[in-house]
């Protein structure tokens, strides 16, 4: 159309190149300006995953900690941050054993407990941590105005529940400071596991004067918190990064070996975290099954640990539900094989097919609970399942079964679980399952309202005691969303709550375990775990089943001692 002479084109191109040059210059200027602007919204970490010279590491967190006001915190990421920076009466060591924290020693009796506090525990503003800090913190948790979602965990303390309901003033709480260094607790009922409870964040101390000075913004930013743990959070840029520095005033030398921990990245995307690890930017990362092939190819030393959570199909016992029929539930139990689900569908080497409500790491009277009280092995038996289904059909007087509603959340695991179980029950029992996939809060609302037959759910531990799982199906427990109710279970839970003899107490848990299996309250699926990889220069890193998700308090950089 417009043939241009060849030499002319060269100058046209020259013109264009000139414009390109202007553009590039402009771009550089803009980028530079934007870079200045971005400095305040994130922090550039340059040391890489392991900075041996500065004794610092960089890590990534899954999400922003939503709530660092520990009187109100509920989630595992907040727990993780708080575990590194604040310390309660007792805490955990690197093998998940309970060790002294702010309390040097303690005594638990039938009617109460006494904690003797150490004199050298200090807040990061230099003030000592006293018994009054605990009294203030605990009263605040129960105060209705605080609206703490985890207030229930303190209900074993005398009058706690009444205060939380607004029937008594917070001062009526059964906890007193006898001087600065003795904390006296009165129980509502015998609570033999109270030492495990006080390691939980809800029981952490709060300095009253500092709390008042925050003017309702306690925990909102790095300077709106006081620290008494092995690390101090000196910087927190929301949703972007944090910096934890070793607390020079921490009383013990057994924790906190790394000088600085940079939380350089906060991202939910597990692929992004893997890429950061591959790029040498973070010290450890989780591996999902699809990543294991590459991890092996890169000759990484893969590790695994339990996450603590047990997943199961919770069945609905409300009247009119098919799942209220025991034979129907037995059919559901026998017709599926958690081994196939975990190993073939999920392909997760770190997960364990579940057989019981209690995960395998729960401690018993002496050793592991499940060694003392072995659960009934799972029986995958389609023929038997069909027999039970036939019995159920006759008992219910049905020609055919109506569709079953399988409720699940919108996570990828929720999808795989529901797809797998839908196919299994269709294939083995000829049942029609309808998947009801809902966002998290919607699923919870439906669970509370009982709008399901089966729901894919999980239960994680709050504290290191069998009761954190054991009381789940008592008739008064609001988390018993299938509304299973049996006097036998309630009686057993009462024993488990208050029995002071550990052997008898564990026996009660053993019976709870058998009852859950016999009544098919749940169909166990798996115990969740983590496959992960750690930079070989970092030693002593732990992933935990109870408390924080990841634990760097015992971590140290290899070869650091040599230089």
């Amino acid at each position, binding site marked *: *159309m*417009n043939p241009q002479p060849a030499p*002319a*084109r060269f100058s*046209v191109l020259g013109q*264009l190149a000139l*414009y390109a040059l202007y*553009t590039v210059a*402009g*771009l550089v200027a803009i*980028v*530079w300006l*934007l*870079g200045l*602007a*971005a*400095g305040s*919204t*994130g922090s550039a*970490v340059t040391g890489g995953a392991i900075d041996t010279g500065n004794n610092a590491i960089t890590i990534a967190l899954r999400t922003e900690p939503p*709530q*660092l*006001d520990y009187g109100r915190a509920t989630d595992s990421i907040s727990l993780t941050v708080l575990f590194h920076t604040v310390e309660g009466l007792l805490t955990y060591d690197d093998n998940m054993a309970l060790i002294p924290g702010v309390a040097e020693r303690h005594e638990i009796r039938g009617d109460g407990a006494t904690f003797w506090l150490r004199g050298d525990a200090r807040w990061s503003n230099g003030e000592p941590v006293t018994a009054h800090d605990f009294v203030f913190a605990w009263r605040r948790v129960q105060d209705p105005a605080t*609206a703490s*979602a985890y*207030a*229930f965990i303190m209900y074993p303390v005398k009058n706690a*529940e009444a205060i*939380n*309901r*607004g029937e008594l003033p917070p001062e009526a709480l059964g906890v007193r400071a006898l001087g600065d260094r003795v904390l006296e607790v009165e129980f509502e009922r015998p609570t033999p596991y109270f030492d495990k409870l006080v390691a939980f964040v809800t029981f952490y101390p709060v300095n009253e004067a500092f709390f008042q000075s925050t003017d309702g913004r*306690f925990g*909102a930013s790095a300077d*709106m918190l006081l620290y008494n743990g092995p690390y101090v959070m000196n910087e927190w840029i*929301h*949703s*972007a*990064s944090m910096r934890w520095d070793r607390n020079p005033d921490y009383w013990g030398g057994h924790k906190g070996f790394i000088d600085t921990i940079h939380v350089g*990245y*906060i*991202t939910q*995307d597990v*692929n*992004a975290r893997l*890429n*950061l690890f*591959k*790029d040498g*930017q973070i010290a450890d990362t989780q591996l999902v099954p699809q990543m294991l092939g590459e991890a092996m190819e890169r000759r990484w030393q893969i590790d695994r640990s339990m996450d603590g959570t047990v997943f199961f199909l919770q069945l609905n016992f409300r009247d009119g539900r098919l799942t209220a029929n025991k034979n129907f539930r037995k059919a559901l139990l026998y017709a599926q094989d958690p081994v196939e689900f975990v190993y073939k569908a999920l392909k997760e080497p770190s997960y364990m097919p579940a057989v019981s409500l209690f995960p395998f790491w729960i401690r018993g009277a002496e050793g592991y609970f499940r060694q003392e009280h072995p659960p009934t092995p799972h029986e995958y038996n389609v023929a038997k399942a069909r027999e039970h289904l036939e019995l159920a059909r006759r008992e219910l007087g049905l020609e055919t079964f109506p569709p079953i509603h399988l409720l699940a959340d919108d996570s990828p695991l929720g999808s795989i679980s529901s797809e797998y179980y839908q196919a299994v029950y269709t294939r083995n029992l000829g049942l029609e399952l309808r998947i009801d996939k*809902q*966002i998290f*809060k*919607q699923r*919870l*609302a*439906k669970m509370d309202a009982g709008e399901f037959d089966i729901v894919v759910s999980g239960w994680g531990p*709050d504290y290191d005691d069998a009761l954190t799982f054991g009381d789940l199906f008592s008739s008064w*427990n*609001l*988390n018993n969303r299938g509304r299973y109710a049996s006097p036998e279970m309630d009686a057993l839970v009462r024993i488990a709550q208050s029995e002071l003899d550990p052997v008898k107490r564990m026996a009660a848990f053993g019976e709870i375990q058998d009852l859950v299996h016999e009544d098919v309250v749940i169909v166990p699926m798996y115990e969740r775990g983590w496959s992960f990889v750690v930079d070989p220069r970092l030693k002593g890193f732990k992933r935990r089943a109870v408390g924080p998700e990841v634990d760097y308090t015992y971590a140290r950089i290899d070869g650091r001692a040599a230089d």
Partner: protein
Amino acid sequence: MRFTLLMWPGGGMAWYVCKRLLQGVLTVWFIATATFFAMHNVPGDPLLNDRAMTPAIRANLEARYGLDQPLLNQYLIYLGNLARGDFGISFTQENRQVNDIIREHFPVSATLGILAVVFAAAGGVLWGALTALYRNRLPDYLIMFLVILGISVPSFVVAALSQLGLVSLNNLTGRSLLPVAGWGSVYHMLAPALVLGLSTMAYLTRLMRSSMLEIIDSDFVRTARSKGVPPALIFSRHQLRNAILPVVTVLGPQIAVITTGGFVVELVFAIPGLGRFFVEAVQQLDYTVIMGTTVFYGAFLVFMVIVVDLLYGVIDPRVRLQ
């Protein structure tokens, strides 16, 4: 269509701006109302959590967020707060004001968005001009092929692949040439901004190309050529300048789209932008954050449209002359 409004009789520019702003406020009210009722229509309960609550704890929480009021009261209270510019406290990040969330995270999205638009505009004009110069020859085909890729591959695939590419690049060279994810320096922005601007760049390239071709065939270019004006001058004075106009026109709306549409890129590149907050807030049914982000983005969009309309009159003399 919108631009014809600028031909206001008597030239009452101030009055016109006032009117537009008033319409904008009305629009924001409409957005707030639609969001409020759509959100409260979502089945589920923002206060629920994994651990069930006793009725006492629940009542305490409801009182804290004002959920114990009837819906209409909540709406009126909300509008009142909105008028004062107060979006309330987040449900999931219970210590943070939604205002703070927006203030801290919108600049991140905006920075990324601006850079993406700049990339897109600069790239679009350059590539578009090149393709037009080399019409139906190799560079044209090559660039158009890339454009087609940019248009037809979903953004999450592009983002994931480009991150993987960065890792390979760093591993291959043995140095951290560009960060793989995160935020905080210029280098963190380059890759995500390119990915974010990619589809817009492709779109602008196409636009620039056709716009250039049209002008190459136009009368004034032919006239200039026949007068013996050197091709380079024709190119810079006539073709490029006139061809850029339509690109500038679509750029305004594109800026708004890009600065608000970075969910995917923010997620994949671990960027603390506002987009992530909205998606997470919806999944968590965080009422105040949903309201805050929607109303804020809505207001931003409305404002951008007004600004672009006004600017258009400045840029294009033809509109002014009429």
